[in-house]
């Protein structure tokens, strides 16, 4: 039975159980509001994946989640739990707009300016999360807490800047930056309404997966993440590798911010803090920190998001309903993780101190 818990089924079982339990609980919640759960689930399906139109909507919403999911999953490979992706996301967006507005006037080709914007977004996000990593091993500051606090600081800084130095004088009642010119906005995938940010996200997830599981660098990272002492004994630069992973993680979220502003919003206002950074935590957990699994999970959550509107229109349910669903899902997932601990302890008691 030990093999059962450790094999692929054992890895998949808890999230699947969590999803099932969530559906049951959420059905109760809907019923309590006088809504027929079956109708609601049918609508959710319809709104998420029922038509080509809803598919496109779901995929658009999945795009930033792919990148913010990586912001959690990458440091997790090194044994760090980063939950402040929202901060990197927001600063990435701000840096991208600043870069776009500044470089836009230099007469460079659009594509080059877009690359500069992406680079700015990646660097801004990367630096924030790398700072959390640095604080971790220089000062022993818990990276989970520091990344969360940095997210608040980042959002406050963003609000400050869009209300001050970068404020568009034309934005009267709500402070916002100037809007990116159309030629700098990211295009869509031909034949769809889906912007190319989705492709960035998918490529980033694939690249992360390949890097972690197939390259020398990823191999070294798994050593350091699995046991830093062993990493030192075999001469790996533990600190630098943790920093590199944190930077890459923040960079992914920052790129997500760049995509959000350059493909959707056009300017940075307080709306830029969409919560994608926090949803990324959920995505990464559901994907069990596997970069490849982030792709389907992000699409699933993007779908739930997309279905919210339909649920509201047809059943007159408040928008927050989908947040409830998401919250229940997260709690169930964490409980399932605890259950997984139990399962492995009972089925394959190898987590126990191994006597020699």
């Amino acid at each position, binding site marked *: 039975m*030990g*093999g059962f818990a450790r094999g692929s089924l054992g890895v998949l079982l808890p999230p699947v159980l969590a999803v099932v339990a969530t559906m049951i609980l959420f059905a109760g919640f809907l019923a309590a509001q006088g809504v027929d759960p079956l109708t609601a689930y049918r609508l959710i399906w319809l709104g998420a994946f029922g038509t080509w139109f809803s598919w496109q909507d779901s995929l658009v919403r999945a795009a930033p989640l792919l990148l913010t999911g990586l912001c959690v999953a990458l440091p997790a490979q090194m044994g760090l739990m980063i939950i402040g992706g929202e901060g990197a996301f927001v600063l990435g967006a701000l840096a991208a707009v600043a870069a776009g507005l500044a470089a836009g006037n230099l007469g460079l080709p659009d594509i080059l300016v877009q690359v500069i914007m992406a680079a700015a977004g990646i660097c801004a996000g990367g630096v924030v999360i790398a700072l959390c990593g640095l604080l971790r091993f220089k000062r022993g500051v818990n990276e989970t807490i520091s990344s969360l606090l940095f997210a608040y600081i980042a959002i406050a800084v963003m609000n400050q800047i869009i209300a001050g130095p970068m404020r568009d004088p034309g934005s009267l009642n709500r402070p916002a930056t100037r809007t990116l010119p159309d030629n700098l906005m990211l295009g869509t995938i031909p034949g769809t309404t889906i912007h190319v940010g989705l492709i960035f996200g998918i490529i980033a997830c694939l690249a992360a997966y390949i890097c972690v599981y*197939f*390259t*020398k*660098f*990823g*191999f*070294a990272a*798994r*050593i350091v993440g*699995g*046991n830093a*002492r*062993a990493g*030192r*004994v*075999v*001469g*790996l*630069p533990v600190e630098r590798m943790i920093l590199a992973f944190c930077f890459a993680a923040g960079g992914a979220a920052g790129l997500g911010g760049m995509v959000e502003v350059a493909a959707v919003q056009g300017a940075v206002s307080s709306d830029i803090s969409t919560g994608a950074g926090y949803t990324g935590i959920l995505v990464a957990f559901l994907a069990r920190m596997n970069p490849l699994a982030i792709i389907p999970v992000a699409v699933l959550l993007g779908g739930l998001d997309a279905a919210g509107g339909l649920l509201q229109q047809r059943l007159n349910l408040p928008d927050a309903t989908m947040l409830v669903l998401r919250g229940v899902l997260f709690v169930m997932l964490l409980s399932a993780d605890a259950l997984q601990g139990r399962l492995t302890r009972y089925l*394959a*008691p*190898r987590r*126990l*101190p*191994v*006597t*020699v």
Partner: protein
Amino acid sequence: MSDAPGLEVVGVTKRFGDFAALSDVSLRLHPGTVHALLGENGAGKSTLVKCIMGFYHADAGELLLDGREIKVGNPRDAQQAGIGMVYQHFTLVPSMTILENLTMGLGFRPGRIDWKVERAKLTAFLDTMPFRVPIDRPVSSLAAGEKQKAEILKQLYLQAKLLILDEPTSVLTPQEADEMLGLIRSMATAGQLTVLIITHKFREVLAFADEVTVLRRGKQVGGGKVSELSVPEMARLMVGDQASRDHAGREEREPGEVMLALTGVQALDDAGGPALQGVDLTVRRGEIVGIAGVSGNGQTALVEVLGGQRRHQGAVTVGGEPFGATREEIARHNFALLPEEPLRNACVGRMSVGENMAFRSFDRAPIGSGVWVKRGALRRHARDLVERYNVRTTGIDAPIMTLSGGNVQRAVLGRELSGEVDVLVCANPVFGLDFSAVADIHGQIVAARNRGAAVLLVSEDLDELLELADRILVMSGGAIVYETKRESADRQSIGLHMAGHA
């Protein structure tokens, strides 16, 4: 105190996947005896006692305590039945005193703890014990022997009448081990305790055990009264009719140039106290330099410094160049290191045996190629090492933490010794290894020396050093306090310097 129980293990079978770690093992512990469990690395000894303790659930078999069948679902059930186990690693909370540790061990205490009452209870208990331990010092400040005694006392305080010890002496000096086993032995003879002890040391079996059971590859292959068995007989039972391998003898050779040199190396321990206070030493090509010393005198820190795990001041040079334990330097100087507790210090438990064996070579051809790690080459490398170093595993894809203790040691040694080696640092390389593996590993170390490697051998076992080392240095209080050549080494003066009297 009530009497020592008898325990019968009947037909225990335990499988991990389709690998049978134990098949139909039976054994009988007579009340008030010390029973030794012998077997090669990976024979299933730890698995058997974990089944008794309820950590593992046997697939078949039963336990009879004083003739009555008992069901042990988890370690707490075992504790309730009066069965206690002492692990090879320490389980007491280091920052708490023995008084606190043992009181907490009793389980749930309602409301606030009346320390006066607890102290009185514990003191009264200790008065009945043949051991002495300081109950008011934090456990972290105790020597290994004292800690081990405290672990045993804890089990007795929790009213264990049947005590299981899994390689309890590997962390102790021979003197400490003798003292501790002698005490346990006398308690058994007095009818207070029944003991099951796992050990690889025949000396301990002969001196302290009444009966022995031998496991080989998960099967009970023999046993009986110690008085009726000889060491060669026990050894044959353990390994079967395997032909023993020939080992390289030491060649007479003059040491060559200095390969490893430490000058004025200082380092702090985890608590910020001094661990190394100016260590100077050199190791030349073709010589084995042994570091003797009572554990806790800086040997661990010394190996950590060489492994890049501990910051230090002072100079470390390898092959005449400053050495900072970076990957590039390690590869350039063919530097190999086997730290103590390899699972904690040199492995990633969750990664497979094959991956762990590639930690040194994953970024070099043939395993590393461009940016990629080549799976095929990694697996070939692992299979080759598993075979050459006789690592007993269910497969190279098994997580390394599922290997038996001795086999983890072999896997890491294989990794470290397989390539060219110019400098080799090993700390207690044969901890927990069975006798044939000990001979094997010692042979490998001598062979490396014969090929011209500079070997620094840190060991708590003086016999090992006297057998292998060309020079012996004694470490005490974080510095080298004595040096002697192999030819002129004498136990007495080494012992005196180890104890810090000289």
